[in-house]
């Protein structure tokens, strides 16, 4: 689904944000991009949403080389790859409901479709009672849940959460992690860039570790020789986790 092949990104200042990075994300995967600030996590997101182009290498999405994507097609790519930002990027003068509705308006959905979808998403993120609140009236965790709901609004194929827990306390971070896991279970590919190891450990998913623009560890590759056995174990563990998460999801 997402393929990065020998991707290098160097900025005009000379700073190398990504250095010969290659990885692949399958449909329906949940992947953590782990690394310190400046490791290149956000650059991967910006390359994937074609906010920028790689200096070298190929980024492809659904077998399409993004370098060949015409300018007018970029908005449609961004409807397939939604982003959840660390700073939420909610519109301050719009209510929770209006913020979630925005991508649906952009996509030209009907009023009835929008209402149904917004109500479903508010239920999913557990903020139905706050739909008329403005972002300033929300806690950090709640604002991030709105941001997630907005990212899911038009049913993207991929949700890229860029440090979604960066501004949150431990408990809120775990709630966001669980929520993203729930979204993944519902069939969406999720990539979560984070340096919050608590969330990474709690969810036990594929991890791609970045350091100074290079991939230093990819748990999928590492697992490869014993893939089947480990996968079975993983699945059993996952099932237990899923049960816990399901309960937690209901609580949310």
């Amino acid at each position: 689904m997402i393929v990065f092949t020998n991707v290098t990104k160097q900025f005009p200042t000379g700073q190398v944000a990504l250095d010969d990075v290659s990885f692949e994300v399958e449909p329906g995967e949940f992947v953590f991009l782990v690394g310190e600030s400046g490791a290149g996590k956000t650059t991967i997101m910006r390359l994937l949403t074609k906010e920028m182009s790689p200096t070298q290498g190929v980024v492809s999405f659904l077998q399409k080389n993004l370098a060949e994507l015409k300018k007018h097609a970029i908005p449609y790519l961004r409807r397939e790859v939604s982003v959840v930002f660390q700073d939420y990027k909610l519109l301050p003068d719009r209510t929770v409901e209006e913020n979630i509705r925005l991508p649906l308006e952009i996509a030209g959905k009907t009023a009835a479709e929008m209402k149904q979808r917004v109500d479903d998403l508010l239920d999913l993120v557990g903020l139905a009672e706050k739909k008329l609140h403005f972002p300033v009236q929300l806690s950090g965790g709640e604002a991030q849940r709105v941001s997630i709901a907005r990212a899911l609004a038009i049913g993207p194929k991929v949700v890229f959460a860029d440090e979604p827990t960066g501004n949150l306390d431990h408990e809120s971070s775990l709630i966001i992690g669980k929520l993203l896991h729930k979204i993944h279970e519902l069939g969406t590919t999720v990539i979560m860039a984070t340096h919050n190891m608590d969330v990474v450990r709690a969810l036990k998913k594929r991890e791609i570790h970045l350091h100074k623009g290079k991939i230093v560890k990819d748990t999928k590759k590492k697992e490869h020789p014993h893939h089947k056995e480990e996968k079975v174990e993983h699945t059993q563990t996952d099932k237990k986790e899923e049960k816990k998460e399901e309960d937690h999801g209901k609580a949310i």
Partner: protein
Amino acid sequence: MARPFKEAFTTMRRTPYQAVGAILVLFITFFVAYAFSFLLYGSEIVIRYFETRPQVTAFFKQDTKDQQVQAIQEDMQAKPYVAKVKVITKTEALSLYKQESKQDPLMLELVTADILPASIEVSGKDIQSLEHIEQDLQQYSESIDEIVYQKSMVDSLARWTRALRMIGIGVVGIMALTSVVVMVIIISMKVAMKKNEIAIMRLLGATSWYIHAPFVIEAIMYGFFGSMLAWGTVVLGLLYSTPWIIDFFGEIPVFPVPWQMYALQLAVGVGISALLGVISTSLALKRFTK
């Protein structure tokens, strides 16, 4: 299509001073443009009036016989560049004089048909034919006492109209440029204020048209309101001053202005206002949404 209109009206309502400022600047521009267009339309009518009047008038000597007058009339009628020939006899001249001086009985008593000369009025097909007509009439110097024609007046009127048109185009051009600059400033301010919102919309998959449409509509609305207001004011002013204008132009038929003229003016005005809106928005967005 309802969203861009809704957003444009909301923005206008939220920034009333900017909206009023933009509309006023456009109002002044279009007011001057509409006023000039009426002025030029009027001048064209005046020129056409003088061009199609009996332009060369020759007054016969008192002793000219009717046969001579008739011969000259037939001669002139045969010329290819002559549109119309009319002879005014002494009696007709007296009756015209009486008509024009009916409010002055003393003048009427003093004048009889004998002192008024007969005359011949010759209309040319165009303004260039006047000189030929004059030369033709000069050949009958034994019968004709004086020749009067209005070429120089028509010429100077045409010159004035040309000058007026150039001044009009210049003034309206400068004012249109000012309007565009003012609108660029206002739209730029609004785009700058919404820079974050625009960035977020882009990340959410908004197309350029989705982002630009409300600004384009807003600028078109400024142009539309400014243009309509100016058109209404000019038309009302014209209707109000109709008696004065009729009095000023006398027998020149500047009224009624045909409805097609009003419709054409309005259509062109609305079209240009939309164009100004699109140009200003494009410039503003080009600067701020790279």
